[in-house]
Every structure is written in C-alpha cells, then in structure tokens.
C-alpha cells in the first residue's frame, strides 16, 4: 500500500538548536516529495520539493531535505531554528501514477522556545 508517515507528532526544541523532522513513505512506484509549512491560522506554504535530480534540496527559510530512496525517506532539516519557525509541518507525497493527488502525512508540530 502507498502511504506517507511522519514519525513525530511534536518536536520541541530550543532556539538556535538544529532540528530534523522525519518523513517516510511506502510506494511501489516512483514519487515526488514535498514539505509544506502552515503557520497558525494561515494557509499552506510550500517549503521545498524533490522532483528529480540532486537528492539534497534546499528550500525557503533555511530548510533543506534529503531524498533517500533506499530508506524511502525525505527528512527535513534546519541547522539553527528561530522562534518564528514554530508551525505545523506537513510531508506530502505524489505517487507517480496518472491522475493521483498529493497525499499528506499527519503533520509535525515544531515548537521553538527561548
């Protein structure tokens, strides 16, 4: 079965600490991978995406993610977080089949404190 799993529902960190938000998927076909951020009471914003090519992708706000095909993972990282990074982060996968839509993980709440 095709699915996407975010392993951590909540990640609390201190300001300026590094963070990794984990995402794994299960698929029998090739995939396109995305990370979205949603700030409180706001809409979805695309952080970064992997479509093809280099497995390390850089996004907005200093975030990056690495596609690992053998481990079927697409973990999101930031070397030093800010208070303003506090938000909900969603991993999303589109399975490479005609007409299929993005499937979202359950989300990870990143809470950055001083």
């Amino acid at each position, binding site marked *: 079965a095709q699915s996407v799993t975010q392993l951590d529902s909540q990640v609390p960190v201190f300001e300026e600490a590094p963070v990794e938000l984990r995402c794994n998927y299960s698929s029998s076909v090739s995939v396109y991978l*995305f990370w979205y951020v949603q700030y409180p009471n706001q809409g979805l914003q695309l952080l970064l995406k992997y479509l093809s090519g280099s497995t390390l992708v850089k996004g907005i706000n200093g975030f990056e993610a690495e596609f690992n095909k053998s481990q079927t993972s697409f973990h999101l990282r930031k070397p030093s977080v800010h208070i303003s990074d506090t938000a909900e982060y969603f991993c*999303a996968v*589109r399975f490479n089949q005609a*007409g299929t*839509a*993005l499937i979202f993980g359950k989300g990870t709440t990143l809470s950055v404190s001083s």
Partner: protein
Amino acid sequence: SAVISQKPSRDICQRGTSLTIQCQVDSQVTMMFWYRQQPGQSLTLIATANQGSEATYESGFVIDKFPISRPNLTFSTLTVSNMSPEDSSIYLCSVGRDPYNEQFFGPGTRLTVL
C-alpha cells in the same frame, strides 16, 4: 504556478443546511482536487473533480454528502450537504497541470457548523 480563488472564504452555517464552495483558477488545469482539513488535523483528500464526468471519491467520502461539479477546466464546486458540527473544517481546492507533478492550493474555505 496557478492563482486559485475560493468563495466564500469563511461561513457559519446551521446544522442540516448545505453550503456550496466555489473554486476558480486563473488558467486551464488538468487536475482539480478537494481536500478537507479538520481542526488540528492534516489534509485529507475528498475527491478528484473530473471535467465532464462524475468526481472520483476517496474512501469515506460519498457523492450524496459531497457533490462536486466541474463544468470546465477552470472552475469547480464542492457542496457540503446536510451539515453537522463534524463537518466544521477548512476545505481546500487544489490544482495540477500536465505534465504535472506539483499541486497548487487555494486559500481555503473555513466552515463552522453550529
């Protein structure tokens, strides 16, 4: 990219009534999808809106409850019928264009059912 507008942006409705949400895109798109985001939850795909034919619904969603229209390549509607408080959610329209591997999201319609 695509510019997507949704109407209404928010509404408060009474139990047992219906609400129709409109999604308008600034250019022709191949794929149109409807998602639901319940409070504190991730996005769940409701259905794929097919131009000129019946929508394709995901498991747990039925046409009688969520009738969808797509009369052309730039417009779709989602109706939430016979509403209950459990239908209180944000409803999002999303589109993709061939050869498509990325989706764009509308601002959402925030629905509260009393």
